[in-house]
């Protein structure tokens, strides 16, 4: 008897207590979709944040709204932006965070760590830097793209990622690489081309500072270094000489050129190990399977010999690409490959620090051992 009375009390309590948690109706919320962070030039080092916000209001004709605010902290700038809106801004669904060039060059650690501290900010949001201010990209982009610019940019990066062309950089990935000793983070770079935002390159960071950019094709080499790549399209330049006798139109219009271009789909993975710890010598094995898609000049693949020549030339081209990329990175002394991580894992004597690795990284030598197998070449021999 007492038990059933207890259940009644419990049910009544449950009904009454629902009022004790603050309600958040969707119609009263401004759901932040994209964040842009710049250093404001008008005030003393204040942060200017630009927000693309969704508002689900039956009376509003446009669901998205652009807001901006100033503050000394990321949250402060958001609160300031909130004074210009009648909605409660909520960060639970942020999809993309854009950092302006100036802010990124000064270091973005202080703008990233508050996102981690707040448990309600999703860890899967994407980060990117812009080559102008983030505000410009977001406001001009909003005018010139027909859809919500935040969603547009997010999809832009997501699509390149889904083709395995660039490494995926979520908030977690970025903070992970940033904190890890012996590895530097990277972020995609968004640029305005004729006032339309585009993904133009990949930004290389030195700690939390944006220092250099590499092309999108180069980003594929980074991606291949870290993970298994599944049929990523790639345009490669090969020397024409070895293919001379297999080219169909011997005296065609392009016969005086030195290079030919081919398009291949590459799948495969890599494995890196340190061979001599003291001399900082590494060996990277890259095993690839390629599918031929297109030539700039028609090639006849009659027998295996042609395939062998092709495989060898592709191997050489990829190896050369890796070597130039590494050289460039050693010059700016930033290690997005994570060679330092491998060194740290094998170095038993003293714990590696970021500074020590910066001294060592320019001196490392890597032997890239590329192994290519031709799988298919389509329907024409």
């Amino acid at each position, binding site marked *: 008897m*007492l038990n059933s009375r207890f259940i009644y009390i419990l049910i009544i*309590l449950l009904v009454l207590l629902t009022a004790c*948690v603050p309600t958040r109706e969707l119609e009263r919320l401004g759901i932040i979709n994209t964040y842009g962070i710049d250093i404001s030039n008008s005030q003393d080092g204040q942060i200017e944040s630009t927000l693309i916000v969704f508002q689900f209001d039956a009376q509003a004709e446009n669901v998205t709204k652009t807001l901006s605010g100033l503050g000394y902290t990321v949250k402060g700038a958001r609160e300031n932006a909130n004074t210009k809106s009648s909605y409660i801004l909520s960060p639970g669904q942020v999809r993309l965070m854009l950092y302006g060039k100036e802010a990124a060059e000064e270091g973005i650690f202080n703008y990233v760590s508050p996102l981690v501290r707040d448990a309600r900010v999703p860890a*899967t949001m994407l980060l990117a830097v812009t080559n102008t201010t983030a505000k410009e990209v977001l406001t001009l982009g909003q005018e010139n793209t027909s859809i919500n610019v935040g969603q547009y940019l997010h999809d832009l990066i997501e699509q390149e990622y889904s083709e395995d062309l660039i490494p995926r950089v979520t908030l977690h990935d970025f903070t*992970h690489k940033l904190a890890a*000793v012996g590895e530097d983070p990277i972020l995609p770079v968004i640029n305005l081309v004729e006032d339309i935002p585009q993904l133009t390159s990949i930004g290389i960071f030195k700690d939390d500072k944006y220092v250099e950019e590499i092309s999108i094709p180069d980003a594929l080499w980074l991606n291949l270094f870290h993970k298994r790549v599944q049929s990523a399209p790639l345009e490669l330049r090969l020397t024409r000489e070895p293919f001379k006798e297999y080219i169909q139109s011997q005296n065609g219009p392009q016969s005086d050129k030195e290079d030919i271009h081919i398009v291949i789909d590459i799948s495969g993975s890599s494995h890196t190990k340190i061979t001599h710890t003291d001399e900082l010598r590494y060996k990277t094995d890259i095993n690839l399977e390629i599918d031929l898609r297109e030539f700039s000049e028609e090639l006849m693949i009659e027998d295996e010999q042609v395939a062998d020549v092709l495989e060898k030339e592709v191997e050489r081209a990829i190896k050369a690409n890796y070597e130039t990329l590494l050289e460039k990175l050693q010059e700016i002394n930033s290690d997005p490959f994570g060679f330092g991580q491998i060194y740290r894992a094998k170095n038993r004597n003293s714990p590696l620090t970021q500074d020590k690795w910066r001294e060592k990284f320019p001196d490392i030598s890597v032997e890239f051992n590329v192994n290519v197998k031709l799988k298919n070449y389509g329907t024409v021999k």
Partner: protein
Amino acid sequence: MEINVKMKSIMHVRAFYLFFIISSIQLGVGVIGVPSILFMNARQDAWISIIIAFIYIVVVLLVMFLILNQYENADIFGIQVDIFGNWLGKMLGTVYIIYFAIALLSILITYIEVIKVFIFPELNNFIMGLLLLSLVVYTVLGGFRVIVGICFIFFMLTHWILFLLIEPALKMELTHFQPLFQASFTELMEGAKSTSYTFTGIEILFLVYPFIQNKEKVKIPVLLAAFWTMLIVTLTTVISMGFFAPEQLERREWPVLTLFKIQTFSFIERLDYVVVAEWMMIILPNMVLLMWGVTYGMKRLYKVPQKTSLYLVALMLLIGCTFIDQHFQIQRVINAVDQFGLWLVYVYPFLLLPLVLIKNKRRKKKGEGIHAK
């Protein structure tokens, strides 16, 4: 007071359920924070510390079995009265009761803090405490067999969470574990010691033992439960260590909950919210068992009706959890429980064992048999 507990056969449960009782009470709020504490002590060799801790726990469990086997059907309250006499024995029994009550409080306030950080920052402690405690009171009113049922059901209902760890497990970096075997012996021991709060709970065996029907089969389920807990703690620690950079893991408050933040499905974007809510099902058996321990102890020692002490303790806990709402206060309570538990759970049985053995030998000499008054 009776040393051996006289039990109606309807109150008995089978030894098989001990697996769920022990693993339910061991897994709780400790798991969500233990990877970073372990990592701070033993760095990348933290997994070795867990194994050391597990071996130690197995030894403690064997000692507990040995103590319990000296009596026909006694629990810790009876044994202590038998060894130390009425007055001192009851006092030591009270120590157990207080320990259970503070452990319960620490779970309650930690979980409320997690909810406040992850989901509702404006939530009132009093209300959350009231809701959780009414669930606890309701369950404990059902009696021991209902409590065992709760442990069984919530064990089944919560372990699907492990599947959500697949995605973070795929993002692990194996270099974080290298170079292997860098921690010194003392660091490994410190690491093992820091798991004590997570692994406590085995002391409930001292209380539930008289309720077991087939006592000859007690060992396997209990050891399996301890093994299961060790497995889950190892799993979460290893995944956290691989998933976070070392410098990140050190600074995370609840790394295990953060692991769930990268898992998304098309129908639920933020699974960490679901997991935080789901965690209530993990801590509920925990709190229920401890509450039962408190009330049952009061009944055994002082003949206080279980209902009276249940309501009274619930009220006191409600007041406690309303006022302890600052992070560092909560940490202080956890540390107190940790220290308290370290002595009571992991050291005390070793002190008790020789006394019990000596007493038993003497009794046999006198020819009184084991049915001593």
